[in-house]
Structure formats: structure tokens, C-alpha cells
């Protein structure tokens, strides 16, 4: 008598087509129950790709904008090298023009006023020399008198 282990029928259900004319399922019986769930690869790929593509587009757009901005800046500077200098010159000219715009009559009046106001300031300096420092300490010679006689020498 042929000995059969209790597990034999379960071990090779596929190898006995004669016993079961129904087509053997490709996957174990438990598989059909999970057949409604898509394989993980089929589920994850589209959402991740969308996220990556969005990020990629944002980064790419940012880089392009930066490149364009930098390039534009240098291009502008290359094609219009004198523009900034001209602006500076124009500003200087405007400042000079503002000075020159002061009528000469006004300058003359200010100069007339300045002759007296400046003189007043100079006068203060002269007056300050009248400190009479010679009178600051006239007692030094009196001290000499007091030192005329040293009683310690008696």
C-alpha cells in the first residue's frame, strides 16, 4: 500500500487535472479575494509621478526664470553699457544745474551778508585772546618774598 502523507493533496493540486476539470486558478484561492485591490505598483506610480512632475515643473520654471533674469541683466548691461554712467552724469548735471540755477544776484546778496556774519565770528576769536593770562597768578612773586628767609638755617 502506498503511503501518503497528510499534506500530499495540498501540495500538488495543480498536477491532478483529471480530478478537477475546472481550470485551475493561477493563483491560490485566497488570491481572487484580493483581486479587487490593484497591485501596489499599479497604484503608487501615477500619484508619485504627478507629484514629481509638479515639483520638477516648479523647479524648472524657477531655474528658467532665474536664468532669464540673470541673463537679461547681463545682456542689458552688455548692450547698454553707458546707460548707468549716463544716468550718473545726468544726476550730476542736474545737481550742477541746481547750483547754477541759483541766480547770481542771490549769491551776491549772500556774499554781502557773509562779510559781516563771518567778521563777527572772526571777532570772537580775537576777543578770546583777551584772557589776560598775565593776571592769572600774580602771587608767585609774593611767594618768593615768603621764601626769603628760611628759619631752619638759623
Amino acid at each position, binding site marked *: 500500500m502506498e503511503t501518503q502523507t497528510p499534506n500530499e493533496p495540498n501540495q500538488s493540486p495543480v498536477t491532478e487535472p483529471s480530478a478537477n476539470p475546472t481550470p485551475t486558478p493561477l493563483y491560490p484561492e485566497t488570491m481572487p479575494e484580493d483581486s479587487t485591490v490593484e497591485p501596489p505598483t499599479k497604484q503608487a506610480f501615477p500619484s508619485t509621478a504627478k507629484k514629481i512632475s509638479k515639483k520638477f515643473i516648479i523647479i524648472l520654471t524657477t531655474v528658467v526664470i532665474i536664468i532669464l533674469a540673470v541673463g537679461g541683466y547681463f545682456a542689458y548691461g552688455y548692450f547698454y553699457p553707458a546707460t548707468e554712467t549716463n544716468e550718473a552724469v545726468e544726476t550730476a548735471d542736474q545737481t550742477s544745474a541746481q547750483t547754477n540755477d541759483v*541766480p547770481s*544776484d*542771490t549769491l*551776491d*546778496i*549772500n*556774499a*554781502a*551778508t557773509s*562779510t*559781516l*556774519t*563771518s*567778521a*563777527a*565770528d*572772526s*571777532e*570772537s576769536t*580775537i*576777543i*578770546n*585772546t*583777551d*584772557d*589776560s593770562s*598775565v*593776571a*592769572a*597768578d*600774580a*602771587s*608767585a*612773586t*609774593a*611767594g*618768593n*618774598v*615768603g*621764601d*626769603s*628767609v628760611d*628759619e*631752619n638755617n*638759623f
Partner: protein
Amino acid sequence: MKTISSKSKVALLTAFTVVFATVPVSQSGAVQGESGNNNSTTCNRMSALSTTGRATVAAHAATMQSDFATRLLTMTSNKAAIDQKVLDARTAANIKFEEKIAELKSRDGLTQEQVTAINTYQVNMQTAEATRTEAVDIARTAYRTALSANVRIQQETLTAAVATYQTAVNAAFATATEDCTNGSANATLRATVKTARETLATVRQSTGTGDSIRELIIIRNEAVRAANEAFAASAETYTATLIAALNV
């Protein structure tokens, strides 16, 4: 006779013993001579000290008076020099101002109103300048008056203190010379001279004018500054008025 002669011998022996034990005859004359010599030396030395001391004090007192006079003269000459500088500066400024006014008036196309405006500006400026200089001069005069008073008081006080010192020292020397034989004459002279010197030093310290003069300078400078600022403010107003009148 024998009894008397025995008593006499005893008495004479006792007397001679006492006398010879206390004052040897051979030496009594020498002590008197040395004492005289010492007194003479002390008196001569005191006399020399008196002569030298009096002369030194008198010389230094004279130097002090000369210094005082020199200081007053220097102050006077400084004042004159500063006054001249101030006058020159004011004159030069006024001449320049007149020149500027003449330049303004020489412009072509001035209307009568504009010429009048220039004249008004000129008068106002000169009036303001006169007000300024008057205020400045008042401040300077006040400073100098107070300064002269300070210096005069200081010199008078020191002169009196030196005179007191000189009198005290001369009197001390005179006393010491007269009492040169007295053993305490030297000590008395020392004490008197020391007291006189310390008294003079105390007066000197109390007559310092440095702080009071600095205070006077501050007051003067503040008055000058205020006068100049008032003038500058007025000048600014007159200048703006003239600029508007000339419509420039």
C-alpha cells in the same frame, strides 16, 4: 694762745677745703672768658643773619612790586593790541560790505523799488551790526573792568601781606640781635619768622584769581555769542527779504 691757734687752723683748713673743692682758682678766670667769647660769636652771627635776611626780604618785595607793575602794563598793552585788531577787522568787514552793496546796485535793469530794497537791506544790516558791536563792546568792557578790579585787589592784598611779613621779620631780627646774649633768642627768632611766613602763605592762597577770571571769561564769551547769534538771525531775515524783492 695755743687754743686759739688750734681753732684757727681747723677753721682755715675747713674753709680752704670747701673753696678748693668747689671752684678751683686756676680755672675760674677761663670759664668767664669762654662765656664772653660765645656770646660774642652768637651776637655776630645773629647780626649777620639779620642783615642778610632783611636785605633778601626787601629785594624780593621790590621784585614783587616790579612784577605787579609789569603785569599791569602788559595787560594794558594787550588790551590796546586786541582793540586795534577788533577795530581793523570791523573796518575791513564794513569796507567789504560796502563793496558788495555797490556791486548789487551796479546791476543793469534794476527798478527803483529794487534799489530801494537794496538800500533798506544795507541800512538794516548796518544797524544790526552796530547793535551787535555795541553788545560785544559792553561785554568786553564789563570783563575788563571786573578783571582790573580782581587784579588790583589781589595786588593790594599781597602787597599788604608782604609788608606785614617784612615788618614781622625785621622786628624779629632786631629783637634777636638785641637779645643775642639770651639763650632763647635764636628759638624766638625761628618761631617768629615761621609764623610770619605761614601767615603770608595763607594770604597768598586766598587771593588766587584764576577761578574768578575764568568765570569772567565765560560770562563775556556768552554775551558775545548771544550778540552774534542775534545778528545772524537778523541778517538772515534781511537777506531773504532782499532776495524776494529782487525777485531772483
